[in-house]
């Protein structure tokens, strides 16, 4: 499937790249990094124009982030109900809300590019936990710009070795995302119970 998609890049490149970055912001498993790198490589071969390729990816990603955020906001009542469930769910919900309120902007920014596998879930959580729309939009757009420029730029520079670039970038971002998730969950698992009672359930 990847090869068939790659063959479509020079012909339908911009629409295809915008569509793929859009879907990948909503947790749909599409090869977005591969197609962005391919877009950069085809731009290096003069089959596409670099600036419009970057713009297409950026446009799709921004619309995707906004959609994920809106879905999260719509689903926030459902989450609130879930938040009154078992103690672990309650902790997770509170934790996500605290994080969004205190360090939400940084979290959104970093999960666009450095920790991109976590991005779609942060979109939903940001919407559901009441992170301000303007703040979310600013950090999301800034991060997406880096994400798209980075992958397209790598494809442009390493146009002869895009397989290598996609392999390496995919592994690095997978490793960083899994490590971040492990630290996050490990801290939740080990957090003392007292703190949970006093800190998390106290009315804001």
């Amino acid at each position, binding site marked *: 499937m990847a090869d068939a998609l790659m063959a479509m890049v020079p012909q339908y490149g911009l629409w295809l790249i915008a569509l793929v970055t859009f879907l990948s912001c909503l947790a749909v498993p599409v090869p977005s990094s591969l197609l962005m790198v391919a877009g950069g490589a085809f731009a290096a071969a003069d089959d596409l124009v670099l600036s419009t390729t970057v713009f297409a990816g950026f446009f799709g990603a921004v619309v995707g982030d906004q959609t994920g955020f809106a879905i999260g906001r719509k689903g926030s009542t459902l989450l609130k109900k879930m938040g009154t469930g078992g103690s672990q769910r309650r*902790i997770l919900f509170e934790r996500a809300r605290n994080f969004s309120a205190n360090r939400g902007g940084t979290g959104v920014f970093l999960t666009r590019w450095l920790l991109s596998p976590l991005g779609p879930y942060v979109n939903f959580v940001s919407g559901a936990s009441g992170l301000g729309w303007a703040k979310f939009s600013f950090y999301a757009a800034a991060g997406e710009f880096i994400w798209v420029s980075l992958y397209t730029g790598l494809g442009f520079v390493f*146009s002869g070795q895009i397989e290598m670039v996609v392999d390496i970038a995919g592994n690095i971002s997978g490793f960083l995302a*899994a490590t971040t998730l*492990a630290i996050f*969950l*490990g801290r939740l*698992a080990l957090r003392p119970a007292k703190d949970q009672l006093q800190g998390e359930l106290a009315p804001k």
Partner: protein
Amino acid sequence: MKRLIHAWKRRPVFATGFVLATVVAVLFALRSVSMMIYWSDPDHRDQSIEGWMTPRYVARSWHLPPEVMIGAIGGSQMPDPRRPLNEIAADQGITLLELTTRITDAAAIFRDQR
């Protein structure tokens, strides 16, 4: 370890998630190492010609001038440059392998002449 077992009893979902995420992180780390070994071999870096590539793409990654590429594909001018090689091969009624062989042969001759 004791703390982990304790945490497991108290918060099984987080503890399980933590272990799974750690396993995934280790797998990615191992894959990174094996990949570095693979890609450090220069032979693996020369990307072979594949059906999704366009003539200009191959010309660029193989450092071939356009006229060598046009000659290899056949005809006097570049076919619609954005068409991938598998479509060009289909138009000419040949297999992709025949087309790529023509390109690699032309590339070899070009490199010998230099």
